[in-house]
Structures are given as C-alpha cells and as structure tokens.
C-alpha cells in the first residue's frame, strides 16, 4: 500500500502503442518518465488522465480507483481531478489567462472562484497579466498559465507533458526553478514526461526509463548512472563506456571482484550473481575515469591503471572530451573528460600516450553475456 494519496498504475495497453507498466508515485514525489520517443511516455499520462483506455489493469489514487478492468470501472476524465500541462499548453485561445484558470475551478461559489483564480495566477508570477489573451503572452508566460490552470483544478495528481520543450534555454531554467519552488507547497504526486535526461536529473526524485512500452528501470538519477540495469539505460543516462569482459576472481568476504579486460585486470567491489570465467558486460561513467598527470605520478594511479593512446580530442569550452584507444577485445575506445586547462597543461593531444585510472567503485556489471 502506498502512502495516503500516491498514484498506483498497473496497466497493459495494446493500442495506440503497446504499453505494459507498473509503478507508483508517492505523495509529493516527482517522477520523470524518460526514454526515446514512441516509447509510450505521453501515453502513460493520457491513460492516467483517462484519454486512453488500457486493455487491462488498474489505476488508483489513494483509496480512489479511476480504472479497474476487473470491476469494469472507468472514471471519465472530467471526474478524475487531474492537473495536466500539455506539451502545446492547450490554452483556450479566446479566453484570457484569468478565464483560462477560472474554467478549472469548479464546485466553489462565484466570488471564491474569482479570488482563487487570481491567487493561482499570482502563484505562478502572473499577477496583473490576467486580462491578457494567450496570443499576447510569451512562451514562458503561457506555460505559467497552463501550470496555474492545472493547479486550479485542485488535482490529485499533476501530469506534465514535456512542459519545457517549447521555450528557450534561459526561460526553461527559470521555469524549472519555479516548478521546484511550487513543489514545496504541493502534496500530490507529480509525473513529468521529458526526453531530456538532464532535466529529469535536475527535477525528479526518481526517473523511470521507458523503452518500447516497458519500464526498464526506475530509480534516482544517481542510481541510474551508477548502476544501470542494461545497455539501453546506460546509453540513455549518457554512459558511453560499455565493455565486454570476463570475471576473473570473486571474493565476497573481501568485497572484491576482478575483471579480466584485454591485458588489464580491473578490481571492483563484489557484485552478487557472477562466477569466475563468466562473460559480462560492464560500464563506467566518464567521471569514473581519472586521467594520470604526466611526469608526476600520484597515489590514485594505483587504482585500476589502464594505458592507451589518445585518439580524439574535443574542446567544448571549459571541458575537453577525450577518446582513448585501449586494449579492448572489441576495440571500443574509452571516453572521458577533463577540464580544458588540464588537457592543455598536460599537453594531451591526438597520438599522445596516456594513463588513466578507472575508479573501482564506479564500475558496474550490467549482466552476463553468456547464453
């Protein structure tokens, strides 16, 4: 049982997209749904709002059930108390910002409705702009009206469908801050659909990675980047260092596992479920790789040292990304990044010999490749 008013979703859908998911979002929690387009992210929101009917399953919020295929229960969208911010905002173009918000306030005396609508507009920093039509507002202001309208519904769950995709970067960051600020007053579950993993990392408590209608993994961003369950999740969170190796030795008492990787051997903390000789796929995020200083050895160099030749150097402003050719059986290079001044001081350039250390506690085995 979830806490008081969390949303529980366990549904299977065959049309318009195949979807088979089960998850819960707790009160005051923000969960981001991320994944490639067509994976069913927006459809999940539509199902919760009642615009798409699952083939089977259950959707409930607290003690209230919105959909239950076994009991043949389907609550109409207008009775669900869902606050939804559409990707297009879907503001009513012929109504002012104030009227847009007012439309969502029901079951209240007329005088209260007016006061409340003004309050919601003030909450999203639109005080004094209520008389404007959507066409007279900037993209950021329209998004705020959409948020105010969603909140004015006094929803039991807030659904945000790519709410930041239609504004420029500066506005996006400002709107994201406002959302974080708004959240502190909201004690409802919030579900955010985004294709931007960084946005999800900044805003969400947990991230659900969706792929072809299934949730591959649902965890905090930290957990996702440290311990992705498979290659798809690893790629989605931006991990490029994915390699095949063999387990050399394991020692659960010493909390040690050793991987044989080309001519190197890598030590990492013990991970359950693997046996010596087993072929595995492992990954390490680029911040798990430390570049050795040239001509000035340091203590960290003893940790999983790997040597190779710099293949590519890309300067992205303050950061320089390196591709290093190492002894990998599949000939995949190692990717890492260093501050640009470090790259320059150490004269790291294409063709240079370079040593790096792979941090033991950042290595993660994603699974066995043995048939």
């Amino acid at each position, binding site marked *: 049982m979830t806490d008081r008013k969390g949303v529980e979703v366990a549904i299977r859908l065959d049309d318009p997209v195949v979807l088979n998911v089960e998850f819960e979002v707790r009160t005051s929690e923000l969960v981001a749904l991320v994944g490639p387009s067509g994976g069913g992210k927006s459809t999940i929101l539509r199902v919760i709002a*009642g615009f798409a009917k699952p083939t089977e399953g259950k959707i409930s919020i607290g003690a209230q059930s919105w959909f239950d295929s076994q009991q043949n229960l389907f609550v109409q969208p207008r009775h669900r108390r869902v606050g939804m911010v559409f990707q297009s905002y879907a503001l009513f173009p*012929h109504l002012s910002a104030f009227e847009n918000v007012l439309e*969502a306030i029901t079951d209240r005396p007329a005088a209260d409705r007016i006061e409340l609508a003004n309050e919601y507009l003030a909450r999203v920093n639109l005080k004094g702009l209520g008389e404007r039509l959507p066409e007279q507002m900037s993209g950021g202001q329209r998004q705020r009206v959409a948020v105010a309208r969603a909140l004015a*519904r006094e929803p039991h769950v807030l659904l945000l469908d790519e709410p930041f995709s239609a504004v420029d970067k500066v506005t996006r960051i400002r709107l994201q801050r406002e959302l974080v600020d708004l959240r502190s007053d909201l004690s409802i579950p919030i579900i955010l659909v985004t294709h931007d993993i960084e946005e999800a990392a900044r805003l969400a408590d947990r991230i659900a990675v969706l792929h072809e209608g299934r949730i591959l993994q649902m965890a905090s961003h930290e957990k996702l980047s440290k311990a992705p369950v498979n290659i798809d999740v690893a790629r989605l969170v931006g991990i490029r260092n994915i390699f095949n190796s063999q387990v050399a030795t394991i020692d659960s008492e010493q909390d040690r596992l050793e991987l044989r990787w080309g001519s190197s051997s890598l030590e990492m903390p013990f991970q359950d479920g693997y046996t010596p000789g087993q072929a595995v796929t492992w990954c390490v995020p680029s911040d798990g790789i430390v570049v050795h200083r040239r001509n000035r050895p340091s203590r960290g160099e003893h940790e999983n040292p790997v040597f190779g030749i710099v293949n590519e150097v890309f300067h992205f402003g303050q950061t320089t990304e390196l591709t290093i050719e190492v002894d990998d059986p599949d000939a995949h290079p190692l990717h890492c990044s260093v501050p640009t001044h470090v790259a320059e001081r150490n004269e790291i350039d294409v063709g240079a010999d370079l040593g790096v250390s792979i941090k033991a506690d950042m290595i993660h085995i994603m699974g066995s490749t043995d048939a």
Partner: protein
Amino acid sequence: MDWSAFNLSLQLALYTVLLLLPLAVLTARWLVTLPPRRKAIIEALLTIPLILPPTVMGFFLLVSMNDAHAIGRIWRSLFDESLVFSFEGLLVASIIVNIPFAVQPALRAFEGIGNDMREAAATCGMSQWRSFRRIEFPLAWPGILTGAVLSFAHTLGEFGVVLMVGGNIPGETRTISIAIYDQVQSFDNASAALMSGVLLAISVLAISITFLLTRKTLIRIRA
C-alpha cells in the same frame, strides 16, 4: 423586378439556414469524434448532394417526396397536403442539397480545434456540453458562419433542384433564379440583368461580411 420571387428566395434561404445550421453543427461535432474510417464514409455520403447534378438530385427528391413514397406519405398524414410543388417541399429539398455546404466548413473548423483543446476542457472538469458551449463553439464559429453564408448564397442561386421539386408557381415556388430564367426566355433582359445584379450584390456582401467577421478570430486561433 419580380419582388415576389425575390421575397420567396430570401425566405427560402433564411429558413434553410435557420433549420440546417443546428443540424450541421451537431453533425460536424459528432463526426470529429468518430474513428477516421467511419468518419470518411459518412463524410462521403453527406457530400453526395455536391457531386450529383442538380437535376438528378432534384429528380430523386421529387420522387421520394411524392405521396407514393414514405416522406411524402408522412407529410400528407401530418399536414394533409402534398410536399412536392409547395414551399415546404422546396425547403426540405433545399436543406438536403445544402448539407455539404453547411457541414464541411463546420467540420473543418471543429477539426482545427485539435484534440488537446477538448482534452484540456475535460481535465478542467467541463461536461461535453460546457466544453462545446465555452470552448468549441466560440473557436469553431468562423467555420460555422462560413457554412451559413455559403448555404444562404447557394439557396438564393439554386435552380435545378428548385425547378424539379417546386416547379414554377408564382408566389409559392418561383424563386429569383427561376424568375431570371423566365425573363430571359421572354427576352426581358433588362429585368433579368437587374435581378442578377441584386443576386450578385447579395453574394458579394455576404462573403465580405463573413471574411471580415472571421478574420480576427482566425488570426487569434492561429496565434
């Protein structure tokens, strides 16, 4: 100038629009909710009056409104008079012939509103009726108005169907188009020119008013 025919045409056009428009709006609104295939089939059926030659359409209507057939028989039992060669018969024919002119623009207007607008209305807790009244109708009205003006102008000018169903009874079924035809037949070109000029002026006026009224709304919706 045959004022009686002119008057009759105006009445016919006005009643046609008044009776057809609510039906057209409801039909268009219903069509947007249908799955694409079913919608296409019904839309095609409703477009038939536009494709058929007016005389053929008129012939079908004449036959089906005859006392020997259902529509005519029902009419006879209700009002104890014939539906063909009467103003009421003209009106029924005119409504049927104008269906595509009224439905198509309204349908395009409802389609233009987009599903997310209807869904936003639902998440605001609006009933279907409230969503229609508060959101969809105000947004679709340029299309609805266009349908009204097209139906009005088309009824004023309709010739083939009117002649087939109504004949040419002065004061009862002789419309302005038929009067123009009669005047040309009797070499009264001056009267024919005057009446044609009046029809032209009404058409231009109607279309201009529609454009002026709808332009502002369309600009706003597109924004």
